[in-house]
């Protein structure tokens, strides 16, 4: 068995699909954030494997930028979760409809 770029991309697709499944089915905003992290990391893996395949650094730079974006997303997301949790008893993304319409 020769492990080429296609194996890494397949693993990345599986992790991405699992993260997507989590975003669809879970209702806790914390688990949603974790699932989104999963998807972002799957994208990172694909970027890095293609960077290795093409022998250029560009994909790794993109992956670094994605890491920065993921970190800021977590900061704002967790801040929102804490702000909502201070005002309401239960955290359920289906009930957070204050900004609807």
């Amino acid at each position, binding site marked *: 068995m020769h492990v080429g770029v296609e194996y890494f991309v397949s693993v990345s697709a599986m992790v991405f699909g699992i993260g997507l499944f989590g975003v669809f089915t879970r209702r806790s905003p914390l688990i949603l954030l974790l699932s989104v992290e999963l998807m972002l990391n799957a994208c990172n893996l694909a970027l890095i494997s293609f960077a290795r395949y*093409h022998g250029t650094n560009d994909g790794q730079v993109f*992956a670094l930028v994605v890491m920065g974006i993921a970190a800021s997303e977590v900061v704002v997301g967790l801040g929102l979760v804490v702000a909502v949790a201070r005002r309401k008893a239960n955290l359920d993304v289906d009930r957070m409809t204050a900004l609807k319409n």
Partner: protein
Amino acid sequence: MTYDIVFVIASALAVISALGVVLAGNPFHSALSLIMNLVALATLYLLLQADFLAAAQVIVYAGAVMIMFLFVIAYLGGRADEPTRDVPLWQLGAAVLAGGAIVVEIVVAVATEAFGDGKHVSDQFGSPAAISDTFFSTYLLAFEATSILLLVAAVGGVVLGSRRPSPRVDEPDAFPDRAPVPKELELQAAVMGTETAFPVTHVPPRQSRAIEEHEG
């Protein structure tokens, strides 16, 4: 051969821990599974000769971001748990369909393509020097934009997390002597509560004059 074995173990760990994130009932277990997933992915990065990114992944993600997650889960306590409510069957089916479709599409797409071996790269590939060389020349704008984004996120985190004891918006009579919320802050107060609304007041000029007089 060792390469193949490490790949199989790391990718199996990545997929299993990803399932753990999504399926675990306890949010603590989800977060710990994600840490394992990040470490497994860092191993895969190492196999792809992305040494610097593997180190950054473990230090930044598994070390810093996930600790913040665990702090928030611990702070929320029981409220972090999943709301007890059945997911409708159609939603479950749609989730499996969407996730499965992406996996099948990508796997079929890469399996039918003859990729062959990757380019031969030097030992310096993926080193901090090589990455910063590209980052600070070709992608300098992206670097600056990312740093500004991080700054804005930090300020946003402080604003969202700041806490001032105040009545809820819908109970205006709880503290009648409190000044009414200014017009431009009403939307912010309605969304996040008055404890996060910052009315900016000027420092009275008297103070500075008094200091000047005292000094003079």
